[in-house]
């Protein structure tokens, strides 16, 4: 069993009455000649790292090596615990956890690239928030991670997940599309609805540039992890409510890729445009030299 396009993946789901996570697990076992026990054990290990990296900074601020971020996850968490959140618990937690992972990442802690290090907060943030708020057991979350990896695989196969090639839309955009699809499956959506959610995110984050201040994976990257997590939940909510999307996932991936390739090089991880060349960022560059 293998698939290269979302439309083929959906056909497999339909013909065998399987979820996207089930199809992805079968593909993994088939293509890489391994067993379900083995891949589940590997994914459980990844999930443990994701959980740890989402949690620690919510109680203890972690300062980044570059010094641009640190303490954001704790601020958001304290804000929620003070009953002041305007978003409610699910979204507050999702964005706090996703920002937490970036604190861990930028202070040389252990993370899972999901799909990249700079976008590593989105998927764990969304998964852990849903797990806590809806009492979802770990084995279901593991399914969610396989669902997410199917969407990420389609992006790697047919487009790109590299900021240097396609801008931030390829990193945070894809991470959020993965999280949206996984959230949709976990909350009872169909495979087609999962792809609607993924399409929605790609559409809503289309054109987002990669413009790291000082060339470091810190700022605005951490903010965009939060934005990706919220976008994923918005898209999943829409899909679960029965809203359909006219542009299928395969077309949205191709569209994102085409937009990415046409972005000027200044906006693709070179730190030569966007936020990175604002007067404030430039002043910071000079003071660091």
């Amino acid at each position, binding site marked *: 069993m293998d698939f290269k396009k979302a439309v083929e993946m959906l056909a497999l789901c339909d013909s065998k009455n399987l979820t996207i996570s089930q199809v*992805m697990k079968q593909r993994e076992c088939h293509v890489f000649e391994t067993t379900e026990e083995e*891949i589940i054990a590997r994914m459980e290990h990844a999930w443990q*790292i994701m959980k740890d990296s989402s949690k620690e900074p919510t109680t203890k601020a972690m300062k980044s090596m570059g010094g641009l971020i640190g303490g954001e996850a704790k601020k958001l968490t304290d804000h929620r615990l003070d009953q002041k959140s305007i978003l409610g618990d699910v979204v507050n937690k999702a964005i706090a956890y996703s920002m937490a992972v970036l604190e861990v990442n930028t202070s040389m802690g252990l*993370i899972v690239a999901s799909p990249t*290090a700079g976008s590593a907060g989105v998927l764990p943030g969304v998964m852990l928030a849903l797990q806590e708020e809806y009492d979802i057991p770990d084995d279901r979350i593991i399914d969610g991670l396989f669902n997410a990896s199917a969407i990420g695989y389609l992006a790697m*196969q047919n487009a790109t997940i590299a900021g240097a090639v396609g801008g931030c839309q390829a990193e945070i955009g894809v991470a959020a599309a993965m999280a949206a699809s996984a959230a949709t499956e976990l909350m009872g959506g169909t495979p087609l609805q999962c792809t609607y959610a993924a399409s929605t995110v790609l559409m809503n984050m289309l054109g987002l540039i990669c413009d790291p201040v000082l060339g470091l994976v810190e700022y605005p990257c951490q903010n965009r992890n939060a934005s990706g997590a919220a976008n994923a939940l918005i898209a999943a909510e829409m899909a679960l409510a029965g809203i359909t999307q006219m542009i299928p996932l395969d077309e949205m991936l191709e569209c994102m890729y085409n937009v990415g390739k046409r972005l000027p090089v200044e906006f693709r991880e070179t730190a030569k445009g966007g936020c990175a060349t604002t007067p404030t960022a430039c002043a910071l560059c000079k003071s660091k030299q």
Partner: protein
Amino acid sequence: MALISAFDVLGPNMIGPSSSHTAGASSIAYLAWKMAGGNIKKVKFILYGSFAETYKGHGTDKALLGGILGFKTDDTRIRDSFAIAEERGVEFTFEINETETDIHPNTVDIFIETEEGRALDIRGESVGGGKCRIVRIDGVPVDFTGEYSAAIVVQKDMPGVIKHIASAVSDRDINIAFMRLFREGKHERAYTIVETDGTLPEDLKDAILENQYVEDVMIVQI
């Protein structure tokens, strides 16, 4: 295109912050450590391109030193690699080369001396997503990734050596994934790199060394 796994999407498990500047850097040095096959006494790193520009903010130096100490990309000791190297008595230096620009942007040269007296000079490139390539050994251009277990044979370029290596491998029932020869010139020093499925048995090195034109064999076990 290589087949993409769920764990290429959700992975690598790594010490941050950057898959190319941190994880890829530690992978290059880890491979170099395996190739050296002994205790490192002294190491010098020369950083080029983007490595040279942003290594401090990305912990590239800590990652490189961690790799040379034998730490994998997900080993939390990478953060403390400077202190650990000092504890172990490993001498290390870092240099920046910003003049050579006709080169992959994330390139490092690693000069190693082992306690056993071996000297090794390796150039590696971090090619994205934590993946890397070794592109030069002791001045000879080569190409391998460390994704497969490999035997790196240093030999004189003479007839029959390749056949001998291939026989030594196949006698042990190992399947060759890739096998390539890189040479300085006809009858000069050459490198054969054999990448295989599965792990390599311990007696393979001695078997390959039996040929008179083989000078050295480095085994990189995955």
